């Protein structure tokens, strides 16, 4: 597969389309929006389902608890905002009103990661997976592309209880095989390989599908279900390769790499391990996110460096 030939589509566009399609069939689907309707492509939803589109304005805390209250009346509620605001500003409200009360609220955190390049550090949410992974009862998902998004949405909507879905801002390559389905707690083997298990979530993984990586025998696993994590598939692969590389557009602290390293140590397996992520820094502005990936050691060049390092380690 050559990245130049890969089709691009926005994951948040796919979110909006899938949500609309779902809402046509299911009158129980509600949106509580936090003043970002156009940015989440929710104009069509708001126009068609007036009484099911609740606009709280720029008030993340109120919106999270309103969503919980609506859910308590039996609705399936999507709480929509940017990840840097929700679940960031309203974390304690999500903890008490949504999770402690076990309400059926699906938190949509858009514009996550360094991919929101030009917006700068305030908007480049790099801590959301850590915040949501630590929350009792919260499930955490990050689709790799628009195709997977359209498969994640109905599944998550159908499951009861709190969930978080992380979305990036730009259009990103379509990677997800159309014949695969999404199951909570299951990962996807995107390529089979012998030498290195590569784990990650979201479109950052698309970098691995260029010709530069063809010379390596990589087992690339899409961990779009970050919590619950598919420990069985991950450990089975690491048992075979003995080398693990985790890549994420997120802080090292509290990210997928933390979850996986814990998993490996607890299993008793021996594995070489490299975690590529943002290391205790804030992001910054750039014209496109490739420049930021280069700066923070997440670019194809950095990934190849990590692969070579893993292969050379005894």
């Amino acid at each position, binding site marked *: 597969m050559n990245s130049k030939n890969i089709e691009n589509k926005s994951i948040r566009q796919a979110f909006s389309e899938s949500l609309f399609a779902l809402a046509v069939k299911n009158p129980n689907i509600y949106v509580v929006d936090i003043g970002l309707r156009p940015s989440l492509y929710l104009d069509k939803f708001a126009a068609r389902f007036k009484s099911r589109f609740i606009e709280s304005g720029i008030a993340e805390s109120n*919106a999270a608890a309103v969503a919980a209250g609506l*859910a308590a009346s039996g609705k399936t509620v999507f709480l929509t905002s940017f990840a840097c605001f929700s679940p960031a500003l309203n974390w304690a409200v999500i903890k008490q009103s949504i999770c402690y009360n076990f309400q059926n609220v699906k938190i949509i955190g858009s514009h996550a990661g360094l991919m929101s390049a030009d917006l700068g550090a305030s908007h480049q949410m790099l801590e959301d997976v850590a915040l949501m992974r630590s929350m009792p009862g919260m499930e955490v998902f990050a689709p790799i592309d628009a195709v997977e998004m359209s498969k994640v949405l109905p599944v998550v909507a159908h499951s009861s209880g709190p969930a978080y879905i992380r979305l990036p801002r730009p259009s990103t390559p379509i990677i997800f095989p159309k014949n695969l389905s999404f199951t909570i707690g299951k990962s996807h083997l995107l390529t089979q390989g012998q030498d290195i298990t590569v784990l990650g979530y979201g479109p950052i993984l698309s970098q691995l599908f260029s010709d530069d990586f063809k010379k390596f025998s990589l087992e690339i696993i899409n961990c779009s279900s970050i919590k619950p994590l598919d420990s069985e598939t991950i450990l089975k692969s690491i048992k075979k390769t003995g080398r693990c590389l985790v890549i994420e557009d997120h802080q090292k602290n509290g990210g997928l790499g933390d979850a996986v390293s814990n998993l490996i140590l607890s299993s008793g397996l021996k594995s070489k391990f490299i975690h590529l992520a943002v290391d205790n820094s804030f992001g910054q502005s750039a014209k496109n996110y490739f420049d930021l990936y280069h700066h923070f050691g997440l670019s194809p060049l950095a990934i190849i460096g990590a692969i070579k390092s893993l292969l050379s380690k005894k």
Partner: protein
Amino acid sequence: MILFSAQKSHPLYPLARSLRLDILEMINHAGFGHIGGSLSSVDILISLYNSGLFNFDKDHFILSAGHLCPSLYVVLAQQNKFPRGELLTYSQFDSRLQGHLNLDTPGVEYASGALGQGLSFACGLALGDKSHHTVCLTTDGEHNEGQIWEAIAFANKYHQGNLINIVDCNAYQLGGSTADIMPLDELAAKYIRFGWTVTTIDGHNFFELESALKKAKSSTIYPACIIAKTTIGKGVSFMENKFEYHDVKDLPEDIYLTAKNELQKY
């Protein structure tokens, strides 16, 4: 204003005495509890659950100020939601009656403790169930929280006539008087400016409580606020108007006995 002697003639008045004694017993037994606000809010809850105006199998009650749970627990026990003897398990390991509200307690619809969230939850619930009333209890100190004002604006926007917020205004919070810590000044005027209908009452007077609840219930377009002026520690002379009795830890025997003696004569 109805005279105090007339207030004592209200059929619910004996409950104001017996449930205050229950609050004291459970907090003394646990060696912990927010006694000041429980004694200021208990008459509000007695009226809410016993006036016959609401049926909380269908209508909703949200206690936003979760630390006031002792006053809700005694009322729920009085409503036979669980045995009265269970009150003595309050805040103990494995009890259904936690130190702040959770969903294990029969009759509790919202688990709280972190202030400022319950009114928003009530807004969502009232929006989702328009055929019933949602009643929320907040406190004046809780209005320090910005989220409360987000919810007040929200309820106005959505014309939530089926939403009632009762504010237990005892004028004190953990560290002092609300006037010193963050003055609310004209709270009623603020609610009115935000588009609510407001009634200010004596929150220990069952006649006034009942009539304010009736009026709030009849509002169809405007969310209704009842500002209940109360006294922190009401019924125990040395606890009244003392922020130091916001919460207690291990009541000394003589304090407990004196308080019990006073409440028996309430």
